[in-house]
């Protein structure tokens, strides 16, 4: 509860610092490819940003409690507060805001672009491939951890000089929470991308294309960070068991000698996911949809 409150207050601070203004919206639109934003485009961008950022404090407050409840339901101890919960709150904020925009009825003048709109129009295929690879790798490591459970029990039982409580803690399984994280994360990210493609337009074709692109790219970027964190967490039990011994224990199979290399994998994955996140949310001008298109 304490950490949830802290997260909520953090979200409130973020909201105050990032409260959308017209000048901020102007800079935001320029960054996302509109050279000379109009007043209408600024208003649309302010509304877009406000609808998402207003969700940060309540979600940052609720996600840790929801994570604790989910862990309890699955029979696991509550997860440590960390980056994963912040990413989850941000992705859910995006998802909720896009879902609300998708069900909001179109009123007044209706403007629609005369071009097919597909997922690869709003997010690069390469980014989606990287994201899928990160999710697949996290799932694979989780499955390896699951399959290795009997072996790990045998190896841990031969460890000397540790209390039974510590060994129980080391043996705490990580695979199921990681697999749940992969499924929930993938559903949320691809849900945002799908809604960004399908939701009702904003009424201004130029800013509409930009905001769809922004939503999809930010979701995929957060997804990369999320998947990277899962990938770092997935081998934690294997690494913890390895940490109980100097060298490879006699009770361990031959493949156990490769476990220390997973530490480097964690570092590599961290760099790849962080780099991928930065790349996908900071697109080059040539990759952006516009323009100064607008209905004047």
């Amino acid at each position: 509860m304490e950490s949830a409150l802290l997260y909520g207050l953090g979200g409130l601070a973020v909201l105050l610092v990032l409260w959308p203004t017209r000048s901020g919206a102007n800079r935001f639109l320029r960054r996302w490819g509109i050279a000379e934003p109009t007043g209408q485009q600024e208003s649309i961008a302010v509304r877009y940003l406000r609808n998402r950022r207003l969700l940060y404090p309540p979600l940052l407050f609720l996600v840790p409690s929801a994570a604790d409840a989910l862990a309890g339901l699955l029979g696991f101890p509550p997860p440590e507060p960390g980056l994963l919960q912040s990413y989850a709150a941000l992705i859910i904020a995006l998802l909720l805001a896009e879902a609300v925009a998708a069900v909001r009825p179109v009123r007044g003048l209706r403007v629609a672009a005369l071009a097919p709109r597909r997922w690869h129009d709003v997010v690069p295929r390469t980014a989606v491939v990287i994201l899928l690879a990160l999710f697949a790798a996290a799932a694979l490591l989780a499955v390896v951890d699951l399959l290795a459970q009997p072996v790990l029990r045998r190896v841990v039982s031969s460890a000397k000089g540790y209390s039974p409580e510590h060994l129980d803690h080391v043996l705490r399984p990580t695979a199921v929470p990681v697999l749940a994280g992969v499924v929930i994360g993938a559903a949320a990210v691809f849900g945002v991308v799908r809604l960004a493609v399908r939701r009702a337009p904003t009424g201004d074709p130029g800013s509409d294309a930009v905001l769809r692109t922004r939503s999809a790219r930010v979701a995929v970027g957060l997804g990369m960070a999320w998947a990277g964190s899962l990938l770092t967490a997935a081998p934690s039990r294997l690494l913890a068991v390895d940490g109980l011994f100097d060298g490879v224990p006699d009770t361990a199979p031959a493949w156990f000698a490769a476990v220390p290399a997973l530490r480097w994998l964690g570092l590599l994955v961290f760099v790849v996911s962080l780099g991928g996140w930065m790349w996908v949310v900071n697109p080059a001008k040539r990759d952006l949809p516009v323009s100064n298109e607008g209905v004047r």
Partner: protein
Amino acid sequence: MTGSRWVVVDPDNGVPPWRQIRDQLVHLIRSGALSAGTPFPPIRQLARDLGLSAGTVARVYRELETGGLLVTARRRGTVVADLPPHASPPDPLADAAARFVAEVRALGGDEHAAEAAVRAAWSD
């Protein structure tokens, strides 16, 4: 989506939405703003974006297909047809009028407002 054109529907101007869409699409195709082979959005996407039923948009597409302005192929979807030279007689005045009507609709004006604006501009 770069460089895409758009269509505007004003539910309050008294003209049925399908006619508003049809007139704008005919203008965009005949004026060459949408060249042969330009892909059109799927019916459901355009209907969703305009807050209309899929049947309304399907009716427009059907009419334009019958008029030889659009073709639908299984793999390419609906695209602008190759227009024979006689299908697009140059008529700069009609083009200017269509552009003006589209602008008026975009601004939320109706036929009377447009007529008053033309009269006022003409007498200047």
